[in-house]
């Protein structure tokens, strides 16, 4: 027995799913209505989440507490977010939009620093270690991987990494006839790297297709379940 609200929600979800699937016949108003509705609801929900989960508990409520308690010494850290908030609001006026650059510069600078540091310590070095570890027999034995398998995996991984990097090496030397061409070894590695890149992109596309097909199956399953539930009611 469906609750009333579950019935309404299930009915809306059913029709909205059909409206999205109507894209099979091309761009149509039903599809657009469904898309706009999702975009609007998602934006509204995001704004509500940001306000209730970020601004209010981390800015407005502490400020209000400090203002109510009169302990302004605790509110020293709240000056920075309030200043950043005020500067960002300056973008409303074109004449004062330059002030917002202070906040934006701070955000971009901090974000870039965090990203570079994280990429160095979290991606480049671990990836290098992982590539090297494939040639570590002890490491392979600890993980119950055979030596030949580990060596083969390591060789493929190394060849793929080197060949893919070589594909993006565009250094070349000018020939006597004026044309430019990469070195022969680099050209060969680049061709191998192109194979690895193609395989990788094919796997990514297969994963995208698998994810989309999974979503379709989930939606069709929902529709079948909803219809079956309705039929069970009557």
């Amino acid at each position, binding site marked *: 027995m469906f609750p009333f609200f579950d019935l309404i929600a299930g009915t809306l979800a059913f029709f909205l799913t059909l409206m999205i*699937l109507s894209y*099979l*016949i*091309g761009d149509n108003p039903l599809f657009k209505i469904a898309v706009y509705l999702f975009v609007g609801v*998602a934006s509204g*929900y*995001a704004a509500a*989440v*940001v306000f*209730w*989960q*970020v601004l209010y*508990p981390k800015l407005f409520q502490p400020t209000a507490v400090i203002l109510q308690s009169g302990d302004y010494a605790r509110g020293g850290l709240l000056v920075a977010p309030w200043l950043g908030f005020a500067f960002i609001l300056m973008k409303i006026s074109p004449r004062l939009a330059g002030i917002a650059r202070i906040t934006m510069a701070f955000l971009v600078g*901090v*974000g870039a620093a*965090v*990203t570079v540091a*994280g*990429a160095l*310590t*979290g*991606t480049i070095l*671990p990836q290098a270690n*992982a590539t090297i570890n494939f040639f570590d027999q002890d490491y392979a034995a600890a993980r119950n991987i055979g030596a030949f398998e580990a060596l083969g995996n390591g060789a493929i991984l190394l060849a793929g990494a080197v060949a893919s990097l070589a594909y993006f090496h565009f250094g070349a030397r000018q020939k006597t006839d004026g044309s430019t061409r990469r070195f022969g070894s680099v050209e060969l590695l680049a061709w191998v790297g192109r194979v690895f890149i193609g395989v*990788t992109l094919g*796997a*990514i596309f*297969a*994963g*995208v297709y*698998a*994810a989309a*097909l*999974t*979503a*379709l*199956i*989930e*939606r*069709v*399953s929902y529709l*079948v379940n909803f219809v079956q539930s309705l039929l069970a009611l009557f």
Partner: protein
Amino acid sequence: MADMIKCPLCAAMNPPENKICLRCQTPLSGESFQTGQAPVRKDTGELEPILPEWLRDARETAKQSGMGERFQREENAQPAAPSADLLAGLQSQAGSDDEEDIPDWLANITGKPAPKPKADEPKEDFSNVRWVETGRKDDFEQEQAEGDLPAWMTGTPPSVGDAGEKDELTDWFRESGAGSDSIQSPFQSMPDSGSAFSAAPSSEETPDWLKQMDAEAKKGSQPAAEESSMDWLNQPSEPATDAQSAGPFGMPASDDLDWLTQLKADSTPQADASPAPDSPNWLKDLGAPPSVESTPFVESAPAESEPFDSADFPSWLADETSKKSDSASIWLEEKGEASVSASADDAFGDLPDWLKSAAPQSSIFDEPAAAVEVQKPEEPQAPVNPPFETTPAFVDDSLSDESLFTDMPDWLSNATDAPVASSASAEPAADSDALAPNILPSWVEAMRPVDQAVPGAASLAGGQTLEQSGALAGLQGVLPAGMGFAPTSKPKAYSNKLNVNEEQLKHAEIFEQILAAETAPEMLIVEKTLGASRGLRWTIAALLVIATLATLLSRAQFLSAPVGVPKELGYAVAAVQAIPENAPALVAVDYEPARAGEMEAAAAPLFDNLMLLKHPRMTFVATNESGAILVERFIAGTLAERNYQSGVTYLNLGYLAGGQVGIRAFAQNPQFAAPLDISGFDAWGLPPLEGVTALNQFALILLVTDDAEAARAWVEQTQDARGVVPIVVVSSAQAAPMIQP
């Protein structure tokens, strides 16, 4: 040598008391010669008021200049001679009242005898020998001009009759004698007794060209030269040889110029007479019928002589007057072209030397024929006289009549037209006893200043420049237009067509083709590819929907489940099963609602295994806005059977803002980054987070994401904070290749 008089003909020096040359019997006084009539004094002072303004100004100027003294002296010595012409009155007036001086040239023009120089007049040295006609040699600034002029212009005209008188015909005669070698000068044909021209001038004083002419004349002395009479003129019908040899210049030594009168009477025989080939054209035309066309003398003589009685005329003119009621120069008028040249020379010969030089040879007297025609349009226009300097008195036989008269200056040709006008105006002039300005002689008219003449359009019609200012103001054609200064008729027309050859045409065609190729549209080669047509789309959609529905509705398993478990799954299961019982586990959710079905399906088995085996205290945190609600949906939906309760067995910290920065902040200080749960309560005091103050205090980190970037961010930013805490990632199929290994 001072006070010696130089004979104008033979250049012999004569005592000042002599009136005729001792060598050639040429009158030395320079007075005009009047044939057959003695000059009669006539008071012409009444003509003074009617003189043109410019002439009166000229007289005033002459009086004021240095020449005035000379003129005054001569006029004082000369008695006032009656004259039959206009200018004679000037001389008379000058002699009567002594108020104005009349130059000799004006007095000579009249034909009246010039005043004889006083015998007691102080004589000058030889260098200052007086010229018979024009006065002293340096009286006027014509020395240089005289050198360019023939002797008949610069010298003293020989007097045929009275030695003490001067006639305007003397110049004419002199010209005839000097200008031709084929025609014997009448003076050369004079008998030995008295012909002054028969004697050659001294070689020292005679110009070379004159010497040459004289020598040639001697060599070619014709029989007619031996004739002492001018009967040749009375017999114009004689053979050409006689006419050639004698001609008008075969004038006998006798002083009578009756030959002129006979010319008229014998005009008919003259017409029959064929001129000799050597004779000039104007001489050839002597025998032509008398023409009513004007002659240069007609304009000067008749009008000027009208106010006077016929008795005042010279004898040679009086005879003509008796035969004809017209003016005294009709004899020349009737002679037609023959008189033209002679009259032209006379008209010019009457001018003083300074005026000759001042008068442009072809300009000031170049009064256009049109201007003359205005005065007498009914009269035929006389042939144009040849220019004065360029045309000798006797031209070669090769020159035709046309060339002769077309080369004559305009002022001479105008003079030929003047008699008619003067004849027309003769009667009124006689009635009023005065001369009207419009009947002035042509040469006088030509000398009039421009501003008093017809505005320059008429004179400029001849293409000659009319000087407007300066010393030459009023003179026309004095300065010939040089190259580049003469006005051109119209600019040269150039064709706007481009002349090109074949090669240039080929090049132009190639260039046009290049330009056309640049602007021509180029067809794009589009490879045919398999597009997403509607049929294909419908077909694919139908296959997928049918396969899904068939599987769901039939609940049949068309494909067998994969055998074995991937190593990654084994690693994850091993890591999950390695955590202690009821240990805190952190679950980071970062996927979109659209991927909820896939992510929930992928994460449900792991979470079921974990909850069933380890009963962990799970803390959920989301790095996107919709993650918190998806966590509630996942716990309440897929994991509903596990009966997890919020705040007791699990805790939803909600949305973690700031992306990588928020993740890093949470990794460094979880309590500060996410102090509250989704319900707003202090999360770090609740049972799921009991004993946990840092990230590394979690037993397990599970990452559920469909975005490789989110997985990388969590891996990278928590690398230092998590320590040895294993991290297990449940990813979407589209992000798995990017997240592995």
